[in-house]
């Protein structure tokens, strides 16, 4: 509850900050302050102290999994602000509004990590999506940005329509006529056809939000067209949040009828892995490559949805954390590059050894190489599937795709270290580099002791 209130209030504060404060620095400082408050508020809630006592008629339900994810999302956003807040200012003139929109997105994030009815899920998704449509088109002078925004809005509205339709079907098909996700669980293995139709519609619209194939077509264009700072935010925190909602929904409502939908998810997973990885190979622009890589990573995260066991619950939290901080780091460096193509990175190691080194660590983490957080993220996902004893073919397929992913991640490393060139880069401050080094150290520490994240977060939570 703390997070929802704080994000909404601070979003409003940020809207007016543009009028009150004249300096961008002050606005940025206010935003970072708000995020710190938000993080503290969320941790307080995990420790059991709610700042606000509002009767939500059981429509929201705050349990450790969602709150843990909130902490990860807010922590990642904090890194994102610290690294890239200055670049947000460069997008346009209305700096306060961008921050406000980001806070509203975070409000949506906190709702979909705690929804208890389909109505709240729908509200959360919308609160999360609408600011994103605006952020995507925030570079008003850039046609590509406008196009991306319109495309995103149209496709997003379409998927929202499907979601509403699915919710209506489920409402009609459920025995009690309910929106509550616990009551939707029918407790037996046979579901009516109407119920399945509703479920599949909901699955399609959620798959759209997490950009799983074959509902991924909007992703590359939108990620490519949006201002790079906002792509970074969309591809990480927002996508991870959609995953958490997806998993909570299916875990609470549809776990009993797993055999009915599992094969669809398996096929979606395979398609996502294949399309994401293969298409990423052919990209010339690193930004677009990262868009496809985010699809490919979504394929791995779908394993958590496929299995829905305790290993995958821990795993998805680790995965979202590992993926988010590494991607935010790469984007932060990418924003500083003058040329977004692979060739633009040529010879970066010579002029900017620190940036090249940390970028390498982030890329290795995305590729899932041991000693980085990404390895354990992938480990948990593979282990979750192997634990069930089914879908071995999918595991084999996934590791072949992981091998493909090495190709495009290493292309950047090769460009930075082994190719001759003079990579053009905007000015970077020492604090920016120091922060990147800290993030890189976190990535490595998580790669050696992943339970630090999971245990620490579990320990500060007394609900159990």
């Amino acid at each position, binding site marked *: 509850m703390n997070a929802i209130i704080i994000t909404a209030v601070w979003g409003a504060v940020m809207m007016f900050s543009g009028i009150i404060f004249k300096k961008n620095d002050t606005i940025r400082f206010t935003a970072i302050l708000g995020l710190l408050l938000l993080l503290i508020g969320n941790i307080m809630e995990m420790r059991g102290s709610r700042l606000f006592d509002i009767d939500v008629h059981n429509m929201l339900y705050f349990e450790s999994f969602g709150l843990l994810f909130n902490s990860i999302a807010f922590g990642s956003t904090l890194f994102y602000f610290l690294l890239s807040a200055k670049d947000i200012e460069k997008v346009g003139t209305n700096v306060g509004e961008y921050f406000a929109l980001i806070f509203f997105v975070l409000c949506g994030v906190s709702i979909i990590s705690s929804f208890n009815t389909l109505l709240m899920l729908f509200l959360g998704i919308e609160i999360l999506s609408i600011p994103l449509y605006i952020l995507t088109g925030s570079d008003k002078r850039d046609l590509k940005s406008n196009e991306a925004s319109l495309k995103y809005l149209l496709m997003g509205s379409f998927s929202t329509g499907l979601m509403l339709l699915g919710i209506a079907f489920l409402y009609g098909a459920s025995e009690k006529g309910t929106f509550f996700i616990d009551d939707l669980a029918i407790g037996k293995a046979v579901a009516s056809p109407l119920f399945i139709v509703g479920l599949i519609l909901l699955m399609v619209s959620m798959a759209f939000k997490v950009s799983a194939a074959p509902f991924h077509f909007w992703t590359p264009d939108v990620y490519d067209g949006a201002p790079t700072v906002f792509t970074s935010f969309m591809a990480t925190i927002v996508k991870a949040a959609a995953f958490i909602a997806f998993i909570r929904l299916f875990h609470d409502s549809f776990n009993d009828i797993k055999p009915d939908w599992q094969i669809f998810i398996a096929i979606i997973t395979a398609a996502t892995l294949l399309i994401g990885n293969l298409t990423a190979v052919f990209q010339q622009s690193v930004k677009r490559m990262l868009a496809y890589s985010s699809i490919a990573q979504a394929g791995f995260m779908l394993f958590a949805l496929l299995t829905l066991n305790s290993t995958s619950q821990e795993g998805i939290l680790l995965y979202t954390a590992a993926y988010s901080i590494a991607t935010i780091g790469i984007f932060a460096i990418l924003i500083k590059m003058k040329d977004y193509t692979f060739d633009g990175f040529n010879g970066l190691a010579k002029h900017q050894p620190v940036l090249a080194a940390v970028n390498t660590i982030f890329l290795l983490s995305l590729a899932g190489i041991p000693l980085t957080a990404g390895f354990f993220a992938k*480990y948990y996902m593979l282990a979750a599937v*192997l634990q069930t004893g089914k879908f071995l073919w999918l595991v*084999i397929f996934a590791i072949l795709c992981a091998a493909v992913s090495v*190709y495009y991640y290493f292309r950047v490393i*090769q460009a930075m270290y*082994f190719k001759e060139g003079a990579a053009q880069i905007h000015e970077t401050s020492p604090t920016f580099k120091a922060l990147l080094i800290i993030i890189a150290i976190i990535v490595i520490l998580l790669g050696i*002791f992943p*339970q630090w994240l999971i245990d620490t977060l579990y320990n500060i939570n007394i609900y159990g």
Partner: protein
Amino acid sequence: MIPVLLILIPLVTGLIGFFIKSDNGSKSWSLFSSIVTMVITFAGVALTNGNPHLKFDTEWLPSLNSHFSVEMDGMGKILTLLTAISFPIIFIATWRSSYKNPGSFFALMLLSQAGLMGVFLAMDALLFYFFWELALIPVYFLCSQWGGEKRIHATFKFFIYTFIGSLFMLIGIIYLYYHTKDHSFSITSFYSLRSIISSQEQSWLFWLFFIAFAIKMPIFPFHTWQPDTYEQSPTAVTMVLSGIMVKMGLFGLIRWLAPVLAVGTWAWGDTVSLLCVIGMIYASLVAIRQNDLKRMVAYSSIAHIGLMCLAVFATTQSGMQGVMIQMFNHGINIIGLWIVVELIERQYHTRKISELGGLALQSPSLALLLVIIALANVALPLTNAFIGEFMMFNGVYSSGATQYNVVFTAIAAISIILSAVYMLNMIQKVFYGNTNALTANGYDIKANEKIILAVIVVLILVMGVYPQPIFELTKGTVDSILGKMSYK
């Protein structure tokens, strides 16, 4: 505590090494580090197996029940010894080579040493996997940054190959982990799996592991990355790759595959043995046709490793003991060969056999030392490789694991004859015959190079005459592994 030191020293000194800028400084630093590691290894080898100082165990990932568990057993001793001796030799032998960014170069070398040590010491499957990859990453950067012209392409192929292999192995490890009674990665839990895992499962699980090991060794037809990578890498890295890293594959096979999935190993023994002998003949024939010294040595290495892998699948006392001693000897011999190649290349700026000739006139001591090393490579009696290869042939011939033992022995023996062909041919063309315009102004090798080659030659001869200490070191390991592999 000793095994932890063996991993930590190269790791920490390696990380520090990144910050050393001067050429000589980083060379001395890495040499110093590797000598300290070597001394500690000697101390470890001197202790009897099972001594508490040779073990270390602490909880690593409680939620997964994975331990940081390292131990120096008989086989571990042999291979850590090889690693510990090789690195100082490599550093001294390549002292005169200059690299840009020397700090990073030597730091990465030390990191790869830490990874190798970890692989040979790990007693926990997840830890083993960790070190397995940790050894690979620095080598990838070493080859790509300091290698030859086609380095990026060649080493990338190498990386992708081994990465796919290791991912398959990771799946195998996780699968076995979920089948252990106590959900543990420890090697003892893995060894108790043989009665739990059915023979059908074993037969496909075998390949998940074996592909990883076969790529690393490499075994035909997984070898295609190897000649290119050896050729393109800087010679110091090639020495690490061919002298020590290929042993990771054999080591994994002996420690993590054959005793764990004994039924699978028996079931596929003939198939793998067939691949081994095909590879041996094929690689030897290709080696004869090579004009580039590096490629020739690379192919000869495929043939030698093939024999060792064949001997593992023979499952006999003699064969396994031969593999143990030969893993060590092959490392020493091939590093010796690479040093000679490096010396020739540095002096004459070519590795083409056709462009060289008459080197013995200019460099008599080099020629003398090379001849001994080359003869060891052909396994002539009195050299170290003779003992190992003899025992392996004996083991393969007397093997009860296959009905084709005579055929395998015969084909493998042909490859030994072929190895004499290409080695002697190389010696004759490069060192004897007439000098040409390129080689007429050659000079003999320097003192430090003489000393290093002499050390190798002494090792070759001593091990060839008195291999008993190594037998005693590994006897326990060999017996226990054969006991677990036996089909009862």
